[in-house]
């Protein structure tokens, strides 16, 4: 799984998510979720504990979707046909729609984790240059900016303490406090970015496509089989689900 070409993996996952957007059959979706999880755990060599930890916030999100859709659903065409849901009797249509939606959101999460947990970040960006013709200027610029993430997180903590010392908390509104954090953080990020851009150009980086690569990424038939299997599995899930109904 880790060896699948990152661009193809991203494309497959995205395409699968789009197809799922037009799928309203809860059972088929559930089957596909099971499939995606199985592929991730079996071929992705992801620890189950780690996987569950990552999945937890998404589960909460899906439950939120479920509840809110139940509460704000459109008026069903047959309100008399009801179904028991936990303790309440609700219109069957509403329950089905809500369940389908929550399950769909959940299936996006599993697809996302399939990608996130099995893909090296640098590999993804480099493969975008090599397979998707993304401009090196853009791609290396993104990597350079991404490097700031831990620096800026630390900086945010320091700014908080520094403001605490100055008694900023006592006499300002919440909004101006957000501003007091955001502006120094952005200013520092922009200056870092300018310095990094200069350092990159000082190493002879021109942003042209004409360069060599230390790490090269290729596509092979395995990648395409992966794409076909992942997408084909959706069809399979639909068929299996239909045969049960």
């Amino acid at each position, binding site marked *: 799984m880790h060896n699948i070409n990152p661009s193809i993996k991203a494309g497959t996952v995205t395409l699968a998510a789009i197809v799922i957007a037009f799928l309203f059959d809860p059972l088929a979706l559930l089957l596909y979720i099971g499939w995606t999880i199985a592929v991730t755990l079996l071929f992705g060599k992801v620890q189950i504990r780690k996987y569950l930890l990552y999945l937890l916030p998404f589960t909460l999100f899906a439950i939120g979707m479920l509840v809110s859709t139940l509460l704000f659903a459109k008026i069903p065409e047959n309100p008399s046909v009801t179904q028991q849901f936990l303790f309440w009797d609700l219109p069957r249509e509403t329950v089905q729609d809500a369940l389908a939606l929550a399950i769909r959101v959940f299936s996006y999460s599993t697809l996302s984790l399939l990608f996130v947990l099995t893909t090296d970040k640098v590999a993804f960006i480099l493969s975008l240059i090599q397979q998707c013709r993304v401009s090196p200027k853009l791609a290396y610029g993104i990597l350079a900016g991404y*490097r700031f993430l831990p620096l800026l997180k630390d900086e945010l903590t320091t700014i908080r303490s520094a403001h605490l010392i*100055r008694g*900023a908390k006592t006499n300002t509104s919440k909004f101006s406090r957000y501003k007091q954090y955001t502006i120094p953080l952005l200013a520092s990020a922009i200056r870092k970015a300018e310095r990094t851009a*200069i350092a990159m150009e000082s190493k002879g*980086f021109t942003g042209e496509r004409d*360069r060599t690569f230390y790490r090269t990424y290729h596509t092979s038939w395995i990648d395409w089989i992966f794409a076909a299997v992942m997408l084909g599995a959706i069809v399979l899930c639909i068929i299996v689900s239909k045969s049960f109904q």
Partner: protein
Amino acid sequence: MKQPLLEVDQLTVTFEEESCSTLTDLSFTIQQGDDILLLGPSGSGKSTLTYCLNGLYPKELDGKMSGNISFAGSNIEEFKSGKINLEVGTVFQDPETQFCMLTVEDEIAFGLENKKISPDLMESEIDRVLSLVGLQHRRKDQIHTLSGGQKQKLALAAVLALEPRLLILDEPTANLDPAASKDLVKTIRHLKEQQDITLFIIEHNIDYWLPIINRTMLLDRDGSLFFDGDLREAVNLYDEEMQQRGIWLPEAVLLAKQAQLAKPWPLTIDLLPHGLQFQTEAPEIKQTKKYIVHVENAIFRNKDKVLLDIPALDIQQGELIAITGKNGSGKTLLSRLITGLLKPTAGDIEFLGKKLRRWKTNELYQQIGYVFQNPEHQFLTDSVYGELAFGQTVSEEEIQKSLEEIQLADQADKHPFTLSQGQKRRLSVATMLVQEPQLLVLDEPTFGQDSHTTEVLMDLIWRHHQRGCTIIMITHDMDLVDRFASRVLIVDQGRVVEDNYPASIWKKTDLSDYGLSLPAKDAYYKRLQEDSLYA
């Protein structure tokens, strides 16, 4: 005569927003094998010159640039985009912002790819440059796991991979502690032995580079050249001018001046004559016996790792304490615990006889000031005046007085972020002092500052100390410690390993164990002692 490597002819640069030129009518040549040190007051355009020499200007410049720069006989504007950077390599001062990849080997490869080197040759090239700087063992590691000094070595290696003929080092030690700085200099000496490379070093700390440089250039405030030649000659002819402009002199020269030694002055302590005497006013020790901070069995843990372990520590009111030690030893952590900015995992810390956690946050920080390393983090308003007036019941006159103390009276309306580095630092200290705290903690207040700002700051801090403010100062500068501190704490691996008067520390402790060195005068005394041993 051989062809010069680089020729600069009447270079003038004026930024769009400035009325005066930043670099003014600069002409000089660099020969193959020169090892140049460029000194200049802050704001004299040293970094601007860097960008001109490596071809980033005029392309990236918002402003005007006139004059000529040629490399090996051809004008640098005739080089194809990116090509001049392969001849003139640059290492910048901030080790954090010179990378665009996540691992050590990828970062080196980035330059090799720019140079369009065949991928087959990259493996061996990466090995070669990493071993030049002594980072072979970190090849596969993530860059963020490296220390500041190692990052700077990586930046050097990434530039060396381009095989430049001229190497510019733009304040490479500005963000490194003394131990890491010396290590970097050692690496560059080693490099000079391995290959023929010309160095152009911009620095404010001369002492580190004495063994390497063979030529010195001095820039004036307006960005014109006022000296080009031998450093010994510079310090003997222009010592007053250099000091007026905030340029640090070598420690040996400072000692010679202090001892009123006749010129010519030598550049290193080893060459000072015997028999010099220096006044030592040991700071008086006030025994108030009133504790301001009391630490008992405080431990700070991150996951399972003990980062700080302080069985007992008392700080008396009126002390001026210096905390010192290697980077990453726990100095800053200790200061954050004492001030309640971080909570200990276990144990208790009292401030003015009351446990920190029982204090109300805003009352506590009326009494405690803390000056962070980066002054920008502390600014809350959009003017210098606003910073001093913020949240405090201070009168108009007091604000004016404090503006004058830090020499910013004519900048009162400016946005704090637009000040120079030294001005920002002075402002951040002043914002803490206007509230007259009982305890003031300063994290490396003079680090990277020119001699002028250092004097203004220490003067300000000293005056408040005289009025009874207890001071805790984190610093690597042992001369500063020697002049001002009444007590020194050396922190190593999360423990306070030494706690004594400065004079006793200089006599008894082997400071090199902690990446530190003696104050200049004690280094001189030590040398005399060793001389007499071998005599």
